[in-house]
């Protein structure tokens, strides 16, 4: 059902996670542009390891994959649209006129 004897031990996964932590911190030495993507990639790999080996999301009913994937997609849609409003200064609404102090 849930915990068959795992092919890779939990402790081994822990070691991988620690190694990835070190890798992630080491990425700070790299130039900023590429560091951001690498650090994010490292985080995704760590999350994947926890999901697959600790939360046993592997060969589970598709409902679980949907429950994880759909919110991520939805959050992505929301952020994409909001980005339109906040990122480009030209697109953002003009700042409100300065208000004089009221009574």
């Amino acid at each position, binding site marked *: 059902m*849930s*915990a068959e004897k795992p092919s890779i031990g939990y402790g081994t996964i822990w070691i991988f996670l620690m190694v990835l932590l070190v890798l992630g911190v080491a990425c700070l030495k790299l130039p900023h542009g590429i560091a*951001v993507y690498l*650090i994010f990639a490292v985080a995704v790999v760590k999350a994947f390891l926890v999901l697959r080996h600790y*939360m046993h999301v592997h060969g589970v*009913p598709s409902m679980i994959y949907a429950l*994880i994937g759909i*919110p991520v997609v939805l959050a992505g849609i*929301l952020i994409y649209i909001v980005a339109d409003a*906040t990122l480009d200064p030209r697109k953002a609404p003009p700042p409100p006129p300065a208000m004089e102090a009221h009574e």
Partner: protein
Amino acid sequence: MSSATTTAAHPQYEGGPFAQLPFGRAGMWWFLSSEICVFGTFMGTYALMRIAAGGWDAERAHLNATIAIMNTIVLVTSSLTIVQAHAAAEAGDREGARRNLLITVLLGCLFLCFKTFEYSREISHGFVPWTSTFWSFYYTMTGLHGLHVIGGIIVNFILFLATYRASWDLVKHRVEYAGLYWHFVDVVWIFLFPLLYLA
């Protein structure tokens, strides 16, 4: 009340392709699904406002990455111990489950201690939630995460106490569900840590 076993043990229910999960596990995943939306929104919004504001590098320099790294180690280790508690509970090893649950609770408290220390240092330097938008986001996101950690510690502690009771066999399947929640809290931190402290 809430059933642990699959529908195989409840032949009175129809079952079917979606119904293979035990109630508690299915319920926990539905809850986590909603939580992904909450934290995803916060993180995405933070990223956007940071880009729009030009990076917030000056403010971010005041964060202490070392404490955060130690917190990451603590939280990841607690994920290890709680999944070991689950394995022990499944195997019938009450002592092992008890021990691992206790360590998980203690590690969770250690996370909170580090966080409190970190907050107090920042506050003493004059960085409070209303100092700037960056600090608003920082305190809100880590604070919300911290509240979830507190919730998880309470649940894990209740399960730890349950190992001392005769009804343990009836409730030991709940270690898995508490573990799912705790792993989720860990995964949120896995993304929160680089987002705030590294990148």
